[in-house]
């Protein structure tokens, strides 16, 4: 009995200390990210990823940071580097989670980055794949605000391109905004952001 309790306590202590390291690390990475120290944030997520090889969140965030960096990068060579690094970590994260709508949305964003990089070459190639990813994501998680927002924004862009009315997608964006207020992430470090961006999309497209 004594030994059993001892073992249990030891395990608890160990896991508690592991947990706190993880929490500290993740919190620090998010802090760095919010301070615009994206390289440091990505590096820290990468370190956490190698220390916690079964957790999909750290590689997911490394990929997310590189996708966002590629959107803001002007230098085409660096854009490619960001997109390739994002792809590597996205692949790592994909191996650790199945049927995950957040992963599908991130992959759609990565392919969108390629379309931004060279629309002539990748626009035709990836547009169907992107639509397909959002379609699958909304089947898996119809009430995830990032899924609703991403799909609506993509569909709106396609509709505008073909000169079709875009107003009906504003309903989806409004719904996404609503969902952001009630969304409960699966854990403290699970994806939960995007509300500010949704607000921005609304202001730019729907607030006339």
């Amino acid at each position, binding site marked *: 009995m004594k030994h059993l309790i001892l073992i249990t306590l030891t395990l608890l202590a160990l896991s508690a200390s592991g947990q706190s390291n993880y929490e500290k690390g993740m919190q620090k990475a998010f802090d760095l990210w919010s301070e615009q120290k994206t390289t440091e944030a990505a590096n820290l997520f*990468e370190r*956490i990823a190698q220390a916690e090889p079964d957790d999909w969140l750290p590689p997911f965030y490394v990929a997310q940071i590189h996708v966002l960096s590629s959107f803001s990068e002007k230098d085409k060579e660096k854009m490619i580097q960001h997109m390739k690094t994002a792809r590597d970590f996205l692949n790592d994260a994909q191996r650790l989670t199945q049927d995950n709508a957040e992963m599908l949305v991130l992959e759609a964003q990565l392919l969108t980055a390629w379309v931004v990089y*060279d629309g002539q*070459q990748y626009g035709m*190639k990836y547009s*169907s794949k992107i639509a*397909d990813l959002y379609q699958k994501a909304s089947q898996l998680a119809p009430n995830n605000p990032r899924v609703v927002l991403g799909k609506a924004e993509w569909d709106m862009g*396609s509709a505008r391109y073909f000169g079709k009315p875009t107003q009906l997608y504003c309903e989806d964006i409004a719904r996404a905004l609503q969902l952001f207020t009630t969304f409960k992430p699966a854990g403290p470090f699970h994806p939960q952001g995007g509300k500010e961006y949704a607000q921005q999309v609304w202001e730019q497209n729907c607030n006339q």
Partner: protein
Amino acid sequence: MKINFTSNVIIFLALLSTSRIISQESIYGIVTQKNGTPILGANVYLEGTYDGTSTGVDGTFSFETSETGVQTLLISYVSFETKTVTAQVNEMRDLKIVLRDDVNSLETVVLSAGTFEASDNSKVSVLKPLDVVTTASALGDFVGALQTLPGTTTVAEDGRLFVRGGDAGETQIFIDGIRVFTPYTPTTNNIPTRGRYSPFLFDGITFSTGGYSAEYGQALSSVLLLNTIDEPDQEKTEIAAMSVGGGVGNTQKWDESSLSVNASYINLAPYIAAFPDRNDWEKPFEALAGESVFRKKTENGLFKWYGAFDTTNFELTQEDINDPEGVRFGLKNYNFYTNANYGVALGNKWKAFVGGSYTYSRTDIGIQASDIGNKENSVHVKTAFRKRFSNRVKWHFGAEQFVTDFNEDFSEDASRAQYGFQNNISAAFTEIDLIFSRNLALKVGLRAEYSPLFRETTLSPRTSLAYKTGKDSQVSIAYGDFYQQPGSDILKFSTNLQARKTQHYILNYQYVANNRIFRAEAYHKQYENLVAYTTKMPTFDSSFSNEGNGYAKGIDIFWRDSESFRNLDYWVSYSWLDSERKYQDYANRAQPPFANSHNLSVVTKYWVDSWKSQLGFSYQFASGRSYTNPNEPGFLQARTKAFNNLSVNWAYLLAPQKILYLSVNNVLGYNNINGYQYANTPTANGNFNRRALRPAADQFFFVGFFWTISEDGSDNQLDNL
């Protein structure tokens, strides 16, 4: 007891926490490039722990750790090789870390001599997969698109690839690394052929105009490598309605596998009824084709199966200077090709590939009163291995076997003849890639082939070297020996011959930056052991020898720019070729009719956003081709006038899934002449009359409507055009 237990726990927990407080070690140092430049933002950490940091502006790093003993420190940064340092933690002080360039990165020199790539992934890609189908003059034929690249000559009445002074038979085509024995639909004089295979099953095309890898043999001048798509994007159904026929396609996807099937039917009868051409068609060109690709992923590998069947027939009477009635020609062809291959990672950086193909082809030809029927059964099996010793040293080797069984029946009136040949070729190759640095790479290979038919062994050394001369430019050189057996047109009459041989010397300069590519390539190619014969055409009565020889030299220039003008993408190819050879029945060395001196192609694609349309123009110029004028002394001494062709196309995106496509070939209606046919006998005043060989029709119009039905309603067939 109880006290003891509690104290145990307290001591244990205390130990846990004190160990964290007491034994903090400091790890610090600097990370630089080879030349001493500090690296900012490198990730430095102890493997398997949370302890680490990023380097600062001056490349320095410093962090504390509670780990003890021997640990591994990892230092990583994009486009550099990750470095590890294993040591006692308390000795990891004042470290000076130098990161080596990652030679896998985009900045590394590429072995590019001779090779053109059409793919998404390669920086040196000169064509994009879409170009194959959106080039105005190509009419959806991948061979047509490749004819706009330098190194090819315009032989408008033939339709096949003629590379650097070589004839069409000197180019071999491979699908997923496995040879295609009968890549073109057979046709007759003055009716250009097309590649059999539909362009949208492939996503990578490599076209090498010389100096290619030891992996490929039985090609004197060129190889064209087609790779089928590994994984289709989504399930869809495609429907095409065209002025010359129609097609349907369907793709199904499952978790680990996918299947694509398509079928097409082409019939030129309605078109020829509306726009009669110079031939007198009894049965206009008709073709039915089906293709299928199945892919299955395994844990570490990918299995692909490809199958294609097509049947073609037509019958016509063609003008002939020696026969006022014209010459009747009829053709029926059945072709079946299947290819299966499996590529797998074996672990420890070994990769294996096994594959094979089987071809069955039957052709029945009727010319006037003669009937010729032939059957070809061919098999190719191949196995290859790759071992990556490091990013800098890679080894590739393998073995393959080709088997061909060819039989022909000839009958005219009462006479009848049967003949054919069987040919086996065994081959093995080995090749090493050495990447010394981002600036210098070398490939060295050797290929050996044995032919029991000729009782001949050939050895072909191949090598290429690339050196980076600047941030965006590089120079490469290549050398190789290439052997190819004579074609079935010769082997069916005589097998007492040797393999033909070429040697390639190539010097290539390439500049790639910011969506602009410039390439210039100079080459010299030496031909030996070409097949010569004593009659006008190869027959049973001919006496054959390997006494032919020749050379080809020239300069190929390519420029592509999709950056300078908004929505405009264009490329320009120019080739200068000087080639002479003595072979077949040539009395002396001469410039063959398929090797004209100057070829120019200009291809433009302009996207008009407000019209949702892509407008394409392609212009081709080819200097005059040689022919023999029997009214003057000499052999192949005369030249036709130059060839000109301007083609336009318009692809209109009606809706995301519906595309309307129009194209016109030779829109300005140039009167092109491919050559002349002279009478066999002179007229009373001693002159030989002649007839100009003109295209069957000067112009060609094409209208198509393409519709894709996919689950999410967004895919389109722009890439099918």
